[in-house]
């Protein structure tokens, strides 16, 4: 009885334990996982990007989220030379780095900082080259190695990027998360202190928030960077809190303990979208789940066989059973927001009867067992490979094809991929930059191996020429035309069956405005405004 009275009394208190003045300028973002480091140059997982790219650092150029055009960030302007090999960037002046307990900058940003940031990745002799680097993801850390030949300092505020060969993806690469600018002065200080590894764990940048602390409970604290060169928000303190339980994050969003949460569980999406106090932000990403056909296998050599197999797969069920509402079904490699996507009017139809007829007409050998290779652990583009494989197995079973599911992990998987001893492979691609080449090249180039993405062992001279041409093509319309041709060819040849484009989901309280989520580079609180709704 008294307990009920007490509970009633508590409800009438209604959140008045909070200090309005403090909650007003503090934003708490509850995330799913901890960042692996505070440097997007070496960590490409979404948690690390969310915690760093837009908050701590700035890049030379960024992409305008509305127009999709490159806009200057730390670089004021840029010019390209006539031979398309040299890009000259003029840096903004009076850009200051973060003032923190562990670093007090004595100078503004200049060309040395830019050189340091890129040479760390490019120059094998650089003192920071091997610091905190894992040999395993080495390749992915160095998107610039095949792109740039050198970077020159012209004067304190001008740098010149020299390309190996003409390549229009330079700007996209400079706008990517791994092209952030570090402070050379800080790096030198760390070398003197004998702790170079701190560069990636006690970061200094030029972004809107400066790093304050990180503790093992998963709390990251940032403070507003008072000397930030762009207009800023009313947020003084930014706090990230890691809580792996989706239920907990959801409850904390409701109880007001979190202002925004990442990755609400699929089961919560319906109630979340009905809640008037919460905005559900879903962004389709370029990350795609694929089913690759090994085109070197005799049984799958004929493109008509691959097409017929694609017809037998019920993508809708896979989407419902594996992704719930966290992905959208797709028939194309490029996502809807890509500028190079060729609009398509005929879609993949799920038609097992027709698939069987077609296979019979093609004299397909139904007695053979088809192998489905898949990685052991889940990935950003597929939360459950095994379930997906089982659904595909059931679909193929319906048309009379026996299948074998092979789960492999790590080195065993790599070895199997290299040997090419598999019929099909459940995979996907995690895209880091907003350029169609970053999807097509790993999947379709003859130079790409199964380990680097080309798990269908696809090599066609026609597509290779188109890929290479588009890379140096400065006429935008022609480039789009090339990509349209590639898409047509791929749609017909079917080395891959695209299954789903994965969504990035964030639930944000209505009291927070202007949070931008970029599916490639992470969440951005630079313009966030917190308002009092009561």
């Amino acid at each position, binding site marked *: *009885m*008294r*307990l009920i009275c*007490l509970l009633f009394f*508590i*409800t009438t*208190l*209604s*959140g008045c*334990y*909070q*200090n309005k003045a*403090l*909650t007003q300028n*503090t934003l*708490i973002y509850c995330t799913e996982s901890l960042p692996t480091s505070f440097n997007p140059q070496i960590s490409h997982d979404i948690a690390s990007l969310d915690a760093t790219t837009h908050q701590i650092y700035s890049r030379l150029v960024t992409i305008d989220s509305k127009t999709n055009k490159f806009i200057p960030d730390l670089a004021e302007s840029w010019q390209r030379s006539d031979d398309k090999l040299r890009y000259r960037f003029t840096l903004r002046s009076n850009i200051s780095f973060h003032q923190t307990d562990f670093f007090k900058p004595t100078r503004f940003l200049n060309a040395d900082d830019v050189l340091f940031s890129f040479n760390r990745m490019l120059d094998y002799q650089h003192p920071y080259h091997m610091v905190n680097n894992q040999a395993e993801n080495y390749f992915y850390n160095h998107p610039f190695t095949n792109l740039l030949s050198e970077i020159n300092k012209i004067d304190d505020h001008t740098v010149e990027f020299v390309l190996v060969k003409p390549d229009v993806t330079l700007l996209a690469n400079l706008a990517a998360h791994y092209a952030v600018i570090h402070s050379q002065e800080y790096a030198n200080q760390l070398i003197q202190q004998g702790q170079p590894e701190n560069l990636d764990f006690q970061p200094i940048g030029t972004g809107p928030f400066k790093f304050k602390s990180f503790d*093992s*409970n998963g*709390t990251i*604290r940032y403070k507003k960077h008072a000397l930030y060169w762009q207009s800023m928000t009313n947020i003084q*303190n930014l*706090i990230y*809190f890691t*809580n792996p339980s989706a*239920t*907990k994050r959801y*409850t*904390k969003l*409701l*109880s*007001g*303990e979190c202002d925004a949460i990442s990755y609400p569980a699929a089961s919560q999406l319906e*109630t979340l979208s009905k809640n008037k*106090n919460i905005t559900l932000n879903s962004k389709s990403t370029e990350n795609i789940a694929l089913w690759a056909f090994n085109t070197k296998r005799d049984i799958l050599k004929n493109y008509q066989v691959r097409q017929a197999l694609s017809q037998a797969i019920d993508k809708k069920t896979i989407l419902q059973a594996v992704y719930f509402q966290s992905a959208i079904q797709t028939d194309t490699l490029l996502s809807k927001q890509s500028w190079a996507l060729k609009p398509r009017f005929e879609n993949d139809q799920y038609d097992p009867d027709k698939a069987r007829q077609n296979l019979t007409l093609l004299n397909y050998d139904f007695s053979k067992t088809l192998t489905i290779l898949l990685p052991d652990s889940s990935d950003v583009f597929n939360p459950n490979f095994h379930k997906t494989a089982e659904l595909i197995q059931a679909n193929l079973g319906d048309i009379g094809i026996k299948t074998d599911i092979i789960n492999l992990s790590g080195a065993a998987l790599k070895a199997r991929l290299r040997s090419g001893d598999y019929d099909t492979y459940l995979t996907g691609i995690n895209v880091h930059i907003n350029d169609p080449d970053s999807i097509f090249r790993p999947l379709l180039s003859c130079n790409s191996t199964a380990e680097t993405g080309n798990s269908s062992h696809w090599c066609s001279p026609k597509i290779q020429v188109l890929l290479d041409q588009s890379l140096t093509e400065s006429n935008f319309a022609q480039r789009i035309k090339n990509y349209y041709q590639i898409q047509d060819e791929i749609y017909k040849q079917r080395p891959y069956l695209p299954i789903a484009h994965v969504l990035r989901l964030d639930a944000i309280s209505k009291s927070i405005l202007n949070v931008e989520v970029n599916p490639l580079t992470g969440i951005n609180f630079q313009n966030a405004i917190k308002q009092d709704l009561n």
Partner: protein
Amino acid sequence: MLSFLLRRLNLLLITALILTIIAFAVDRIVSVNADAVVSHNGYISQYFSYLWNILNGNLGHSSVDNQALLDRGLIFFASTLELCFTALIFSSIIAIPLGLLAGLFRNTRLDYGIMTIAIIGLALPVFWVGVMAVLLPSVWGQVLPVDGNLSLIYEVPVVTGFLLIDTLMVTEQYELFAFIDRVAHLILPALVLSFFLITEIVRLTRHSMTMVMRSNYIQAAYAKGFSRTKIVFAHALKNALPPIIPQLRLQLSTIISFAMTIEIVFNLNGIGKWLFISLKTGDYLVLPAGILIISGFILSFSIFIEILMVIISPLRRGSLYADK
């Protein structure tokens, strides 16, 4: 008196030794690979050096972040104790009046009503009630926090480990808001934890009150013509409450283990969550340290209460002379 103290301390010592042997065994099992080099020393000498380390307050270092286990364990344990203590206060406020009423009006509808509530409280698993409480924000919105020890807005340096005290030390910066925030964060978990305690206290108080009301001096007071109110307040209460305390002492280990479950449900930084997380991350050295801290506390606390009871309660003093 001295021989009584010696007997108690003797008990403490022997139990503590047994505990260290258990902790040592756990320690050996989990770190068998780590120091295979020293194992040729033989277990006996290893045990003695382990004991020596414990006596020096060295329980080893975490294999994950290399922090001293004793310091960290004590800080976490302080927060667990804070939770238990708050739950005890809550349940006393709620349960003692209920128990007294039930005892006074024994076998009436009121008694049955109160006892029904108490039995339901006992029947509900604590962690289930905790999970239900965590879901409350979906029903009533932004009212009480359901997660964590303290809002992340406040940065309170660890001094004593007792956050209620630590938050009072930062009043210059946050005024009383940090303290209020801490209290708000304690309310729900403490209420859930007190569910179990309420049942126990109601039953104990009811029983004790019944016994007192049946005793001869109360009958005598009735015979003298005192009013019922005067009898209850002047004579019965004073004698009904003290016997509950030693009974509650027996519940201490249950309370602490429930508190550890609650911590995991409410994501509170206490010793339960510390052990849980350490097990998940494979930091098994935390296990013997946790055993030693928790059981050491329960052991010394119950002996302390026993001694205290002997000092304050004349009836119990008889046990001083048991050997005579």
